[in-house]
C-alpha cells in the first residue's frame, strides 16, 4: 500500500493513498459534555457581568433632555399655520423653555429628531443622484431618472440636488439661550461644522467644479428643489466650505436614518466660549425655533434632544442591562450543567473519558 502507483496494470486507477483523500487527516474531536464546557460557561458569565457593570456605570454618567416641540407652548400656533400649504412661505417662530437641574459636563450635542418619518422606504431611498452630489458635471444638469418626479421642475429645468431625499430636507432652525438670572441672557454658541463624517464631507459630497466662477454661477441652469426656500448655493453663503452640496445640514439629512424615529446632529456646544467651558451649567434655557417643517401629513412629531455622549453612545440603557441579563442566564445554565455533571457524569456512569 505504498504511494508508488503503476501507470498501467490492474491498480492503475486506484485513488491516492494520501491522508487527505483517504479521510485519515488527524482530527480534533471535541466533546460537548458538561465537564469540558463548564469552565467556558463560568468564564463567559463572568465576562458578560463585568462588561454589563462597566457599561451601566458609563451610561449612568450621561445626561439627556428631550423636548417634543410639535405643539408645545406657542409652537402650537406655528403647527396650525403649517397645516395650510398656502402659508408655506410665511415664517413662523416660537419659543420653548426648559431647565437643567444638573449641569451637563463635557461636550453637549444638540440633535433634532423626528418621529414616524420613514427615511428608509425603498422608493424614497432610490430617489437621489449620488453622482450629482459628487459634483460630476455631466450629472449636474442631467439628473438620474431615479429622481423622478423630483428631477426637473414644471418648465423642464433640472433640479440640483434632485430627488425626494433632498427635497424633504429638514429646515427648522434653532437658537439656544441661557438665562443665568431673570434679567441676563447669554446666547449659547453651537458649532455648526464638524458634524459629518470626514469621508462624507470630503469624498462623497463635492461641489461642481467652479474654476473661477462663483458657486452660484457653477449652478447656473439648475434650480432648487421644490420644497426649499433657498437655492443650494445659498445654504451658508458666509462660509464657502459649508455651501453648496457640501453643506453639513444637507449631508447629514442625506444619510438616511435606519428607523422611523430618529435624531440627527444639529450642533455641538462651542466650549471655547467662557461661560460654557465645562459644559452646560444648570439653570433655565430657551430655544428659539424657526418652525418650517410640517409633520401633520404623516402624524409625526418633532423633538429636540440635548445630550452628553460617552465612548459608546448616548443614554441607552439597553446594552448594559442586556449584558447583565445574559450573564445571569449563562450563570443559571452553568449551575444546571454543574448539577447535571454532578449527578450523571461524575462517577463514570456515562463512560466519561
Amino acid at each position, binding site marked *: 500500500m505504498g504511494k508508488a502507483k503503476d501507470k498501467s496494470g490492474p491498480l492503475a486507477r486506484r485513488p491516492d493513498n494520501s491522508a487527505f483523500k483517504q479521510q485519515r487527516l488527524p482530527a480534533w474531536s471535541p466533546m460537548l459534555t*458538561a465537564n469540558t464546557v463548564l469552565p467556558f460557561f463560568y468564564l463567559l458569565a463572568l465576562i458578560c457581568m463585568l462588561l454589563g457593570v462597566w457599561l451601566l456605570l458609563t451610561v449612568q454618567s450621561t445626561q439627556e433632555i428631550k423636548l417634543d416641540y410639535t405643539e408645545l407652548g406657542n409652537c402650537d400656533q406655528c403647527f396650525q399655520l403649517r397645516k395650510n400649504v398656502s402659508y408655506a412661505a410665511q415664517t413662523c417662530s416660537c419659543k420653548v423653555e426648559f431647565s437643567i437641574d444638573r449641569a451637563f459636563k463635557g461636550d453637549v450635542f444638540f440633535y433634532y429628531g423626528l418621529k414616524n418619518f*420613514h427615511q428608509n422606504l425603498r422608493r424614497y431611498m*432610490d430617489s437621489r443622484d449620488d453622482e450629482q452630489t459628487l459634483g460630476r458635471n455631466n450629472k449636474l444638469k442631467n439628473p438620474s431618472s431615479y429622481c423622478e418626479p423630483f428631477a426637473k421642475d414644471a418648465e423642464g429645468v433640472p433640479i440640483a440636488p434632485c430627488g425626494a431625499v433632498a427635497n424633504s430636507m429638514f429646515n427648522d432652525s434653532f437658537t439656544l439661550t441661557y438665562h443665568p438670572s431673570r434679567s441676563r441672557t447669554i446666547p449659547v454658541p453651537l458649532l455648526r461644522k464638524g458634524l459629518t463624517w470626514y469621508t462624507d464631507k470630503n469624498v462623497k459630497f463635492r461641489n461642481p467644479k467652479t474654476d473661477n466662477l462663483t458657486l452660484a454661477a457653477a449652478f447656473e441652469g439648475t434650480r432648487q428643489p421644490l420644497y426649499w426656500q433657498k437655492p443650494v448655493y445659498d445654504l451658508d453663503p458666509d462660509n464657502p466650505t459649508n455651501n453648496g452640496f457640501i453643506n453639513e445640514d444637507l449631508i447629514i439629512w442625506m444619510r438616511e436614518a435606519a428607523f422611523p424615529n430618529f*435624531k440627527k446632529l444639529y450642533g455641538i456646544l462651542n466650549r471655547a466660549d467662557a461661560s460654557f467651558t465645562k459644559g452646560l451649567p444648570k439653570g433655565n434655557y430657551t430655544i428659539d425655533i424657526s418652525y418650517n417643517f410640517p409633520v401633520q401629513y404623516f402624524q409625526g412629531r418633532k423633538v429636540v434632544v440635548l445630550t452628553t455622549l460617552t465612548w459608546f453612545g*448616548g443614554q441607552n440603557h439597553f446594552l448594559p442591562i442586556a449584558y447583565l441579563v445574559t450573564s445571569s*442566564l449563562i450563570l443559571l*445554565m452553568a449551575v444546571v*450543567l454543574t448539577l447535571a455533571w454532578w449527578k450523571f457524569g461524575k462517577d463514570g456512569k456515562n*463512560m466519561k*473519558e
Partner: protein
Amino acid sequence: MFVSGDGANDVNMIQAADIGIGISGQEGMQAVMASDFAISRFKHLKRLLLVHGHWCYTRLANMVIYFFYKNVAYVNLLFWYQFFCGFTAMTMIDYWLMIFFNLFFTSTPPILFGIFDKDVSAEVLQGVPELYRTGQGKGEYNFLTFWISILDAFYQSLVCFFIPYLAYQDSDVDIFTFGTPLNTVALFTILLHLAIEIKSWTVVHWIIMLGSVALYFIVTLAYSAVCVTCNPPSNPYWILQSQMADPMFYLICTLSTVVALLPRYTFHVLKNSVAPSPLLQGRQLDRMEPSTRDQWIKEWRGFRGGPLVKRYELSDPPSPTRATPVDFFTESLTDADFMGDDNSLNVITDNHHRAVQYDDNLFRKL
C-alpha cells in the same frame, strides 16, 4: 432498499433498487456498469455499509438541515426589518454583500462539513454494528430535527435583529451602518452554529472557517473602500471601516452571537451529559485505549437493554419483514467482530450456531 450482486442476472435487481451495488470480478462487469457503487470483493460490503454508509447518511442529513437553517436565518433577518421600513422591501445590507454572503462567505464551510465530517471512527462503527440503526427509520433527518432547526433559525434571526435594533433605537444611526453589525452577527452566528455541529476538526476545517471570516472582512473592507457611487442607494463607502472603529459594534456583535447560540449549545451539552446518544457513546469509545475499548464494546453489546444503551435510541428499521443482516450480526459475536478486521461475511453461517452458547459464556465471564 439496498441490493448487491455480481452477475448479469443481477442487473435488473440492481437497477430496480434504491441503492444497487455491483461487485466486479469473475462474473464480469455488467453488474458494475448498472450499479450506483461498485466494489471488488464481497467482503468490502461490510465496510461500505457500516462505515461509509453511516458517514454518508450523517453528513448528508446534517448538511441539508444546516443549509435550510442558514437560509431561513439570513432571510428572516431581512424580514424583520420590513416592519420598520413600511414593508417596502428595503434591505439594510448592501445587495452585493448579501449575494456574497451566501456565495462566498458561508458556502464552503458546510460543503466541507458534508465531505469531511467523521462523527464516529471507522473502527468503532465496524465494531458496534448497532450504530448503523441510527441511520434507519427515525434517523438524524426527521420531522423533529428539521423543524427544531427551523425554529432555532427563527429564534436566532430574532436575536440577531432585535439586539442591534434595541441598541441603536432612537439614535442617529443610518441604514447601512445599522446593517453592518447585522451582517457580521449573522456571519458569526451561522459559522459558529456550524462549529457546534462539526464533530471532527481537521486542519482543512480550521483553514476554511477562519478563511471565511477573513474573506468576509477583506471583501467588505475592500468594497467599502472603493464604492463611492457604484451601487446606489447603498454606496457603502467607508461604512465598515467606521464601524470597526466604534466599540459599540464589537459589543453588539459579541452579545448577539452569544445570546443566539446559547440555547443550542446548552441543549447539546445537557443532552450529551444527561442522556448521551449511542453515537456520542461511540465517539467516547474512540478516545479509549484499544484494550479498554474492546472491553467496553463487549459489555455494551452484551447488556441488551441495560443501563448503558437504551434500546429505543437505536430505532427500528422501517419494515423488517425478516431479520436484516444487522440482526444477524448482533447474534454472532466473535472476537473478530470486535477487532473490526473481520474479512469474511461467512459469520452468518459459521458462527450463527455458536452465538447462543457464546452469549452464555459472556454472562459467566463478566
